[in-house]
Each structure stands twice: as structure tokens, then as C-alpha cells.
């Protein structure tokens, strides 16, 4: 926390501590809560009665009406057995993804002593770097078994590098005063293989307005300025404006192996449906489908499952207490992970069938939980104390 932020925190504390707190109207809150609960139950009963009436009417009307009322849509799984605490979970193996703790990078069974604790992974490729640029120098290394191979060390590199879904390419941005260069580094040849300079005026003192979104498994790189989305093919040097996205925002929220995910219709500034699809070589976006949310979620490595926070019935949960859900995109079935209500976390996939959740439950209490996508069975992979002592891949 810098001086400004420290002052802000102190000012908020001072303001809060000087405010006159009225007494808690405990009894009237209970009474109002009981009235609300009774009204909710009455509404539920009325809805059940109405549904029964519809079914009775449908039976009376004969098979024609019943055909028309056949349910469509995904078959949701109902609530699974409720756990009350993460402590109830059995202990399992340590995470299969790289992580950093107390000066050591853990990779599989091996450990490497390093102060560089920021981790970016993709397709089996791991990069480590510094969480904050030291002496205004951004530095990143490629993990080669137990060695760290330098990738880039420059003052003008901004943000985290991106790793392609197959792990072959690493991308980063180099910022100049009136332009930004997107750089592609090949992890096999271990050198820069392509550069693309985009003449975009820096918006202000806070950095360039160019955004590097990522690369798909066709080696198509996506970047843009928020108004237009560009697809660049480093192999041919072709850059095209992506068309066919209609009224979707031109800034995708994710680039998966098959292509971009956009934020769909939104009733709220934070979350909305995710619209996913692919971009063909002519730069046209082809919509493939939607997933329940565009953020706080992740595709499995084989792009068949979508892990997201949802409610007991598989709907995306923004204000309700969320739990971790997995949508099988091919069948439309949702699977609830067997976790206590309200427990979700940052998701990353350990394999096509297992996901890891980094769950914070309070100060100095956080866990890495492994869940089986199909069965929902979960186990503890790590039990941790201070958040600042740990780093996991692709943390923002």
C-alpha cells in the first residue's frame, strides 16, 4: 500500500470511527424478517398451487396440450449433499499446477528457489516474473524443468504476458509514447518470431489504450482499442478488423483455444452472459453459443466444460450465494461441486476433469480445493495462512 492509499485507508477509518451508530432495532428486525419470510412462503405456495392447476388443466385438455408443454432446456442437477465447512473435506494431493510459496516455486514434486513469484501458464508452459516491476524493469522467465530461462527484460513491457492455449507462444506488449508493439515469442525456438506495431496514441498517463487479449489455437492474436477488435496472424502478417460481432462489445473478456468470449446482454455492469465462438481467417466471428457468465469462470483445457459460480439450480449467481458449478457444454447439464453454500473461488483447471478453486474464507484463511467436474466430489489440496505468502498461476 503506498502513501496515498494509506492516507485513504486512515481517512476511512477515522470517518467510520467518528460516526454516531444508532442502536440496533433487534426486535423489530426479527419481526420484519418473520413477515418477509411468511410472505415469501405464501408466494411459493401460491406458485405451487398455480402449477398444480396448470397440470390438472393440461391433463384435462388431452395430449395435444401436453406435447406443447414438454420441458426444454438443460437438465439441472438439484442441490447435492450440503457440507457446512471446508474443514469437512478430505485431504488430497497437492495442486498439479505450479504455485509459489515462501520463496519456492513448486512444480509437480520439484521445488525451485526463486524470488519471482508471478506465474502465467498455458498449455503446459509456465512463465514466472516479478509481481511488481523492479527498478521499472519487467522481467519474465520460462520454466524449463528446474531451470529458469530468461524471456524478456525490458522497461517498456506492460502487464502480464499471455501464453497460447497450446503453450507454444508467449505474447507481450511493449509500450512506446505513441504506439504499442505486440511481440510473439516462440517457446520451442526460444526467440521472438513476430512483432506488430500498432499506432495507437496513449490515452493518458495511465498507459496505452491498446489491449492485448490473447491468442487462439489457430495462432490468431487478438488486440484492440475497445472500439474495434483486430485479429492478427503473425505467420502471414495479416491484420484484419473482426466483423460479425454485431452489438457485442469489441473487447472480449477471454480468448479461449477456439476463439473469443464476449460479454453478452447485460442488466448489470458487472456480469452477463458469455457469448463464445470462433474467428475464421477472413476475420469473421461465428457465434457458437452462450455460457452463464462472461467472467469469474474458466473453460476446461479441452473446451468442453465451463466452470462458473452458480446457484443450486445451475443459474449464474451474482447476488445469490454462489457455489461452484460446471456446465458440460455438449449436453447442457450442470454439475454442482459438493462444497458449502457460498463457497466459490478463482478457478483454474488442473486437467480436463479436475478443477482447482482458490477459496478465501477470511483473513489468513484460504484453501486450494480440488473438485471432480463430473461427480462434484471435492478435497482439500492446500490449506493456507497469509494470502501474501502464496501465488498461483494467472492471478490478476
Amino acid at each position: 500500500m503506498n502513501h496515498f492509499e494509506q492516507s485513504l485507508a486512515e481517512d476511512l477509518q477515522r470517518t467510520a470511527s467518528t460516526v454516531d451508530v444508532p442502536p440496533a432495532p433487534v426486535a423489530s428486525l426479527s419481526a420484519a424478517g418473520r413477515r418477509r419470510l411468511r410472505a415469501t412462503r405464501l408466494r411459493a405456495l401460491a406458485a405451487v398451487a398455480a402449477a398444480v392447476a396448470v397440470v390438472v388443466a393440461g391433463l384435462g385438455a388431452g395430449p395435444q396440450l401436453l406435447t406443447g408443454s414438454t420441458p426444454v432446456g438443460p437438465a439441472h442437477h438439484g442441490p447435492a449433499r450440503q457440507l457446512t465447512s471446508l474443514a469437512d473435506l478430505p485431504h488430497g494431493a497437492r495442486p498439479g499446477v505450479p504455485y509459489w510459496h515462501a520463496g519456492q516455486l513448486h512444480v509437480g514434486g520439484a521445488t525451485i528457489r526463486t524470488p519471482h513469484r508471478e506465474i502465467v501458464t498455458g498449455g503446459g508452459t509456465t512463465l514466472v516474473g516479478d509481481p511488481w516491476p523492479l527498478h521499472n524493469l519487467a522481467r519474465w522467465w520460462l520454466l524449463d524443468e528446474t531451470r529458469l530461462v530468461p524471456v524478456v527484460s525490458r522497461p517498456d513491457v506492460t502487464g502480464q504476458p499471455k501464453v497460447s492455449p497450446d503453450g507454444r507462444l508467449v505474447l507481450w506488449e511493449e509500450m512506446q509514447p505513441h504506439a504499442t508493439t505486440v511481440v510473439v515469442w516462440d517457446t520451442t525456438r526460444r526467440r521472438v518470431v513476430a512483432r506488430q506495431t500498432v499506432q495507437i496514441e496513449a490515452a493518458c498517463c495511465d498507459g496505452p489504450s491498446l489491449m492485448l487479449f490473447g491468442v487462439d489455437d489457430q495462432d490468431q492474436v487478438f488486440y484492440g482499442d475497445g472500439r474495434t477488435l483486430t485479429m492478427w496472424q503473425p505467420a502471414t502478417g495479416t491484420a484484419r478488423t473482426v466483423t460479425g460481432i454485431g452489438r457485442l462489445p469489441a473487447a472480449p473478456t477471454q480468448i479461449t483455444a477456439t476463439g473469443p468470449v464476449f460479454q453478452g446482454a447485460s442488466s448489470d455492469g458487472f456480469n452477463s452472459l458469455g457469448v463464445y465462438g470462433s474467428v475464421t481467417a477472413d476475420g469473421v466471428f461465428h457465434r457458437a453459443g452462450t455460457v452463464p457468465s462472461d467472467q469469474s469462470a474458466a473453460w476446461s483445457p479441452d473446451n468442453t466444460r465451463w466452470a462458473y459460480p452458480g446457484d443450486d439450480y445451475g443459474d449464474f449467481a451474482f447476488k445469490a450465494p454462489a457455489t461452484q458449478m460446471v456446465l458440460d457444454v455438449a449436453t447442457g447439464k450442470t454439475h454442482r461441486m459438493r462444497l458449502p453454500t457460498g463457497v466459490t473461488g478463482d478457478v483454474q483447471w488442473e486437467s480436463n476433469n479436475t478443477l482447482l478453486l482458490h477459496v478465501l474464507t477470511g483473513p489468513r484463511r484460504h484453501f486450494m480445493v480440488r473438485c471432480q467436474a463430473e461427480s462434484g466430489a471435492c478435497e482439500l489440496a492446500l490449506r493456507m495462512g497469509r494470502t501474501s505468502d502464496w501465488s498461483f498461476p494467472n492471478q490478476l
Partner: protein
Amino acid sequence: MAADERTGSFEEFVSARWTVLYRTAYLMTGRAADAEDLLQATFVKAYAAWGRVQRADSPEAYVRKMLVNGFISTQRRRRRERDHAAAQRVPAPSPTHEAGGLDRVGMWEHVANLPPRQRAVVVLRFYEDLSEQQVAHVLGCAPGTVKSQTHDALRSLRARVTDQPDAEGSLR
């Protein structure tokens, strides 16, 4: 859950957490009356969902989440009402500028004028001392959204407080 049991544990919780949550509500709403309304509405909802609140790993975090989301919803509704009022050519006061509003103390004057989501993020990050991930969980959004909201809020605050952008202020 038996009604007596529900009421007993609920009232115990309200008594224990009222002050802490009121302060958070006050920092977000900027007005004592609004803070009280928001907190009461939140607790009434919490009573109706008390079984789920108790099953949560941290009931206080759960109720705080309800509080923050209630605040954002209320602000959104008020904005629509203000827009409607403006369309009807009826002057509508800004909730953060009404008479009898905030005790203006230092930087807080500027925090109170941030957009509601940025205000919520600032209060959770710098008053509640939550991490970006924890704030994201409270708000039900991606950590990246929290990061950008924090960044925007701090940039605005710096500009307002110092009247000049801070070249050092990179949160990235």
C-alpha cells in the same frame, strides 16, 4: 429450523455485528439515514434466508455481500429515478450532496462523490481491508473488474485531491 431458534441466533448476530456493518453502510451511502435503511433492509432479507446465512463459512461475509449488493441496487434504482425526474424537469438532489449529509473529513469528501460501484470497491478495499479477490467475491465479479474499478477510483481521487495526475500511481 424452529422459529425460536432462528430468531435467537439471528438476534444474537444482529447485536454483535450491527455496529461494524453500520459503519460500512455509512461509508458507502454517505448518509446516516440511508445507512440505517440499507442495513435494516439487509438484515430483514438475512432473516428470511437465515438458514443459508448460517451455513455460509462466514455469516458476516455473507451479510456484507448482501449489504453491498443492496447498496448497488439501490443506487441503480435511484439513478433511474433521477433520470426520470430530470426528464420530467423536476430537480432531483444527488444523495451525496443533500443537506445533513456526510461529515466531510479530508479525502472522504472526494470518496463520497465517486460512482457507487467505485465507492463500494474503495470501502471494501481500504476500509474493510479485503484483498482484490475477496472484493471480487463480495461483488460477484472478476478480480480484473475490481482492479480496474480500484484503479479508476484512485485515479479520480488523486486527481481531485492533488489536482494533478500521479505518475507513480500504477496499480498494474
